[in-house]
């Protein structure tokens, strides 16, 4: 039997898990809940592995496989189908989603144990995984949009998971509203596409687009900008990045799964999936690169100044997705997807390890109140170190090196790349090293400032995912070795069946080694610098912080370049101001008036239901007269 026919089961397992948990969850034992919640993802992961092996050994024609489950309905030719689409791009995505999700679920079984709402958590998580799988497997825009909104909804629900605290509810609303701005652009873009091509099928649209549109046509520029709007919102890129740090209000596994590994990279997926359109609009593609570059720098500096462990990681996520956007912008499609995969491994690992640390510290998030955890939590420390190494891109031994280096090289050497793009990325890489090792040293070295009451290292379910993800963060890079040596590139070869290969300027490969060397130097320099500042001579960083310039910089970066304050001034304050000077706003009158009007009409008609039979009869008689008059006078 053809394995690909079973593709529908991949999203079906999480859906089934969600349904079981939602319907019968309240009656289930917590152990059963954990089994169902994790098991459903596990089954999908195994199935994905099986399908993946098949895909590699016996690939379908043209490396693409479309499974039409059914046509939703067919009324006079309008027939949206429920169809899944598997190609190397979606295969990579479902592989990452199912496996990383599985380990995060496993971790959560222990992490969330003492929480009320255990069922609710796993139900939402399963629903999220289902939506995310639908998003990446969708064959048409309708289904893709369904998944897109589904993940947004789950993100909202999970950020506000501890809904009793008002701050969490605020963070959830903020995430929802900010991404909604992007979603609005996104859906308008989809409408434009449907209007132009009269089909919802993504592949049909991509095939027809180069025929219908010439490069740089106004329509394609608009469509790509609008789609980019959606991507920027979901992936927390400039200027819609402000929601992600606040989204850390959710439980840590949620941050690991949704706000690091999977959902926030949906924007990357969207642009990669519609790369044909972006190739037709070079100006917009350049915009993607610039957005990526600015985001990675701004977020990197912000991460430098944070105290909250999870917020550091959040800014770091924004920054790393900035690298992916940079790669997309310079036409290094495969490099972006490669970095997505590696990033999913090490960032999930970092979040999970951070979760363990926070758990040990009794919900303490401030890294300056931790310290000295290296000895007490060896597994956490070593895995966190591996993740940090990958994030900082320590040469040769970590996967992050291979993926980030590829992006830096492509930013320099690709036909769309330039020295300035490379330089920005290079500076970003240095900052990355600084904040990463600042985090490592402050958290794990120095004196222990707080006793550990309950050491999560005893929880096997929490430690196994850490170890597995750490291993992946190391060996994951070996499937794509640089041009300079070995030139072993199975990953991008696999992806070139769907994504175009990166076009390099001539005679660039020789310079790669130089660039790598430079990167290696700054990485080690960065590590040394942060070791100096936070372990060897802590006074150094403290004295700098005490200068007025230092404090100003710190505050500025700490508040995320004041974007929140800026938006507050730009959008929120004026609106609040207007609402204050004009509490009975005229626009309000329209909406409220509409509501009132309806209520009024309701009350009016409700009076006619007086219970008097003879009144009812009179109405019938009037109705008959009315009919007569219509016939006679029209």
């Amino acid at each position, binding site marked *: 039997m053809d394995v690909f026919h079973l593709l529908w089961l991949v999203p079906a397992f999480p859906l089934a898990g969600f349904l079981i948990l939602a319907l019968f969850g309240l009656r289930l034992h917590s152990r059963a809940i954990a089994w169902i919640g994790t098991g459903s993802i596990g089954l999908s992961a195994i199935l994905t592995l099986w399908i993946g092996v098949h895909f590699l050994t016996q690939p379908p024609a043209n490396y693409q496989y479309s499974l039409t489950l059914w046509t939703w309905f067919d009324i006079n030719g309008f027939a949206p189908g429920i169809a899944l689409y598997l190609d190397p791009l979606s295969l990579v995505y479902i592989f990452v989603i199912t496996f990383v999700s599985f380990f995060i679920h496993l971790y959560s079984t222990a992490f969330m144990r003492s929480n009320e709402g255990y069922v609710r958590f796993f139900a939402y998580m399963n629903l999220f995984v289902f939506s995310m799988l639908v998003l990446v497997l969708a064959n048409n825009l309708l289904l893709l949009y369904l998944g897109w909104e589904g993940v947004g909804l789950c993100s909202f629900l999970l950020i506000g998971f501890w809904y009793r605290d008002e701050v969490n509810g605020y963070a959830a609303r903020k995430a929802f509203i900010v991404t909604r701005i992007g979603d609005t652009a996104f859906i308008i873009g989809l409408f434009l596409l449907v209007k132009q091509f009269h089909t919802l099928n993504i592949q049909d649209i991509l095939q027809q687009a180069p025929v219908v549109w010439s490069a740089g046509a106004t329509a394609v520029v608009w469509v790509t900008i609008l789609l980019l709007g959606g991507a920027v919102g979901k992936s927390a890129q400039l200027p819609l990045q402000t929601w992600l740090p606040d989204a850390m209000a959710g439980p840590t596994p949620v941050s690991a799964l949704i706000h690091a590994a999977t959902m926030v990279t949906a924007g990357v997926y969207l642009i990669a999936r519609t790369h044909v359109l972006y190739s037709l609009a070079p100006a917009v593609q350049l915009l993607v690169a610039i957005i990526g570059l600015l985001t990675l720098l701004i977020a990197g500096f912000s991460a430098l100044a944070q105290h909250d462990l999870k917020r550091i990681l959040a800014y770091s996520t924004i920054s790393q997705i900035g690298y992916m956007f940079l790669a997309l912008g310079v036409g290094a499609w495969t490099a972006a997807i490669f970095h997505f995969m590696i990033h999913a491994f090490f960032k999930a690992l970092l979040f999970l390890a951070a979760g363990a640390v926070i758990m040990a510290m009794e919900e303490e998030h401030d890294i300056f109140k931790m310290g000295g955890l290296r000895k007490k939590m060896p597994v956490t420390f070593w895995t966190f170190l591996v993740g940090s190494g990958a994030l900082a891109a320590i040469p040769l031994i970590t996967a992050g090196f291979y993926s980030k280096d590829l992006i830096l090289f492509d930013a320099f050497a690709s036909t769309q790349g330039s020295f300035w793009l490379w330089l920005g990325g290079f500076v970003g890489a240095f900052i990355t090293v600084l904040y990463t090792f600042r985090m490592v040293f402050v958290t794990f070295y120095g004196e222990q400032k707080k006793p550990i009451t309950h050491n999560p290292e005893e929880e096997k379910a929490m430690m196994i995912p850490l170890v597995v993800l750490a291993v992946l963060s190391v060996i994951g890079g070996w499937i794509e070795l640089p041009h300079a040596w070995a030139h072993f590139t199975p990953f991008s070869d696999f992806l070139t069946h769907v994504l175009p290969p990166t076009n390099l300027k001539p005679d660039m490969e020789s310079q790669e080694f130089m660039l790598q060397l430079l990167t290696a130097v700054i990485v080690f320099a960065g590590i040394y610098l942060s070791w100096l500042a936070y372990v060897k001579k802590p006074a150094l960083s403290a004295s700098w912080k005490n200068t007025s310039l230092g404090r100003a910089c710190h505050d500025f970066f700490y508040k995320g370049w004041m974007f929140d304050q800026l938006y507050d001034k730009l959008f929120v304050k004026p609106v609040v101001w207007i609402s204050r000077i004009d509490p009975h706003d005229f626009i309000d009158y329209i909406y409220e008036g509409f509501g009132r009007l309806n209520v009024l009409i309701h009350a009016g008609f409700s009076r006619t239901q007086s*219970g008097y*039979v*003879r009144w009812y009869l009179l109405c019938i*008689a009037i109705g008959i007269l009315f009919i007569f008059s219509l016939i006679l006078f029209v």
Partner: protein
Amino acid sequence: MISVPVSVQLLLPSVLFLIGLLGVLIRRNVIFMLMAMEIMLNAAGLVFIIGSSLWKQADGQVMVIFILAMAAAEVAVGLALILQVFQMHKTVDVDQLQELKDERERG
């Protein structure tokens, strides 16, 4: 003898029908309402009689028989219900049947 035009023939059932309708609308006693309904139904029967004499068919008369039978059934059920109402409310005034209606608005 002059043959009466159809429109004039139809006047009688129409007037009967209106009398019945007015009766239903004006009377509050359910029994009188039932009687008024009978008048309306019989007016309809009369229309069919006129039709069957006009077109010289028996079909209309068959319909009248059915109308009569059904009217009897309706009245039988109706009277039984009225009896029940009378036992509960000690009145046969329809306007007293006020248990079922839209509640007044809250604020």
